[in-house]
């Protein structure tokens, strides 16, 4: 009896909504600095959900999500930079001897265009690479290594074309967004609220996607891609779609990141951050949606906290975390709970079996 009431009040949906509301209310509790950090973590969480759709559900490990994140971030940053210069030439272009705004920067004068491209551009690149590789049945570790090569290409290009991208310094020093000062506390709070809402939306839509038949197909592809072919599915289409989707989500996260952090540079999109992104998902628990969110927030909070107190030890800790999670917690934190659940469930079942026996 008690159980059912408990279940009704604390249904998963209700709790998720409460978490969402609590996040929305965070500006009431947190200082500007902490709120800004939390906002950054939540932007990472958005990316982690997309990465988990790809890895946790579909079984495709990409070590190149940094560039999709980066593409989104750069699109937004280009708009912000042009806002800051008032349509003039950004400083680094002047040093590189340019006299006119290059063609590819021109569309980014318009914020709407920048936002659309920030999602579209990563999606297009992911689609092209995904379509080719998945159609050619390059999968598993080969795809993973290819995705790393892609990072290397893009990062080298970004660093190399200094006159277009600001080179290794990246883009920073922004003023306004839609006319609001990006650095003021109110705007930052607004960015935070937007991030929470986007996170909620991405979470909700992803949940809808994976809870239905579509999600089962993804799991099927993860566990037996070839078998799925003989059930009449074309796994490459599904993989390409999810890869594209998760790249678009990464782009979205990148835009929110730039708004809150105020800088994007190639170091943020390289090989090391790309692997760290995978760790968020692994630690939180792949194949669940709440897992990557927890993982992203937890790892980054630990990184901030740890490197504040013990900068030298942080690398040891990070390395150890990878090893321990993979070996002992392959399902991450959520997996830990599932295990604990199962054990208790088994106890419940065994006791109920005994009851039945005594009746008969």
């Amino acid at each position: 009896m008690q159980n059912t009431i408990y279940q009704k009040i604390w249904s998963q949906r209700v709790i998720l909504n409460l978490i969402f509301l609590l996040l929305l209310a965070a500006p009431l509790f947190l200082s500007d600095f902490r709120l800004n950090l939390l906002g950054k973590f939540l932007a990472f969480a958005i990316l982690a959900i997309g990465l988990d759709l790809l890895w946790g559900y579909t079984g495709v490990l990409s070590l190149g999500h940094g560039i999709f994140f980066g593409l989104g971030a750069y699109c937004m940053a280009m708009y912000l930079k042009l806002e800051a210069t008032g349509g003039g030439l950004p400083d680094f272009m002047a040093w590189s001897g340019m006299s006119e705004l290059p063609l590819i920067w021109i569309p980014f004068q318009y914020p709407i265009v920048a936002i659309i491209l920030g999602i579209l551009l990563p999606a297009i690149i992911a689609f092209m690479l995904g379509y080719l590789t998945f159609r050619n049945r390059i999968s598993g570790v080969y795809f993973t290594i290819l995705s790393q090569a892609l990072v290397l290409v893009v990062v080298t290009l970004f660093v190399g074309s200094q006159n277009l991208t600001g080179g290794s310094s990246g883009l920073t020093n922004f003023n306004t967004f839609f006319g609001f000062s990006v650095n003021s506390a109110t705007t930052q709070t607004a960015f935070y609220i937007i991030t929470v809402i986007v996170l909620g939306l991405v979470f909700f839509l992803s949940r809808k996607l994976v809870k239905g038949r579509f999600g089962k197909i993804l799991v099927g592809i993860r566990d037996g891609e070839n078998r799925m072919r003989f059930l009449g599915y074309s796994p490459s289409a599904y993989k390409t779609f999810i890869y594209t989707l998760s790249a678009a989500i990464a782009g979205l996260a990148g835009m929110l990141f730039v708004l809150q952090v105020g800088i994007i540079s190639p170091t943020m999109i390289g090989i090391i951050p790309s692997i760290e992104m995978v760790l968020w998902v692994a630690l939180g628990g792949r194949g669940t949606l709440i897992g990557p969110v927890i993982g992203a927030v937890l790892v980054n909070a630990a990184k901030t906290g740890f490197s504040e107190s013990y900068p030298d030890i942080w690398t040891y800790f990070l390395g150890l975390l990878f090893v321990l999670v993979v070996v002992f917690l392959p399902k991450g934190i959520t997996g830990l709970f599932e295990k604990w659940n199962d054990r208790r469930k088994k106890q419940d079942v065994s006791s109920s079996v005994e009851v039945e026996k005594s009746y008969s």
Partner: protein
Amino acid sequence: MRKQNFFYLLILGLLASFMVACSAADNAANATDPEEEAVDATEESDSNEGSDGDTIKVGILHSLSGTMAISETSVQQAELLAIKEINENGGVLGKQLEPVIEDGASDWPTFAEKANKLLQQDEVATIFGGWTSASRKAMLPVVEEHNGLLFYPVQYEGMEASPNIFYTGAAPNQQIVPAVDWLLENRGDSFFLLGSDYVFPRTANAAIRAQLDNEGAELVGEEYTPLGHTDYNTVIAKIKNENPDVIFNTLNGDSNVAFFKQLKDAGISSDDMTVLSVSVAEEEIKGIGADVIEGHLTSWNYYQTTDTPENEEFVANYQEEYGEDAVTADPIEAGYFGVYLWAQAVEEAGTTNVDEVREAAKGISYEAPNGTVTIDGDNQHVYKTVRIGEVQSDGMISELWQTEEPVKPDPYLDEYDWASDLSESLAE
């Protein structure tokens, strides 16, 4: 089902308690002791950044991990040495300095985040930090937004003068311009420019091109390699083809090791061609190997061998603190005297308030290991002596030439006609 919900419930609970805890912590931090408040009120009305009771907090923000840790760790050590010395001599304004150390992790957004943290959370009086231009550019909007201070210790490409940054490294006219002049006079007039592909080499080389053009010298080639590039055979082949008198080297970090080793292997020694480097100091020579780079030139404001009494003391103290094998170098020295310059400005101002310190800092002089350094009030750079040196077989650099007196910093190269195009395009 029920217990899975419990998991979500747990997250909810943790999140809620985290927020309450944070807000409580913030409140505690903001609510100052009523007595102290009263004292503060009598002393002065405006806030006294970083000054908390008996100590003054100062931020140290360098990369302690990642690729840049190689260079930045020593600068951090020098800054900590200066802080220690100041504290031993009674501190600043009678208060001890309390360094708050953060790791920029060779990642520019992290520099921005940590600078934010230092200014907002720790409320430090100033930050000493940065190495790459990228890290400085990442911190710039943060220190400007929160009206903080940053002491930046490395030579850089110029074209910047933020009111919130003090630049204790060399501006281009204190390193690159005089080096080119000297080379033209002493080593020949065909130049090959080689650099890593990022903002400093590109901007520096743009200036060199204009300067060479003005002097009627010949530019025979210009190559950029990605950061961390390790195979220089092809570049060396190109250099051989062009056979320049001088290679002006703005390579960064590890690439220098690969370049010099492979240059020597290719049979090119300092007798055949002069390589002048602007990013290779004593520290880097240790990693390259002195035998490989011996005889090549560098341009800096300071060498470990610089002959001043202040330097003798500095080197001795540094080696006592960090070991016999530790070497000092230009950025290390710039980090070191940056702390002293700030301390002097604070004493002058009588407060750590940023606006007053900035005002007091104008024209302040300090006897640094490299000689007298003076803050130029116009651009917050520092007057420094320029030195051309030659690498010796023991890894030390011996001075070949130095300017007679400290050179006025000119980050925008306003004083040079040939650079007018460069600075004009910037003025827009």
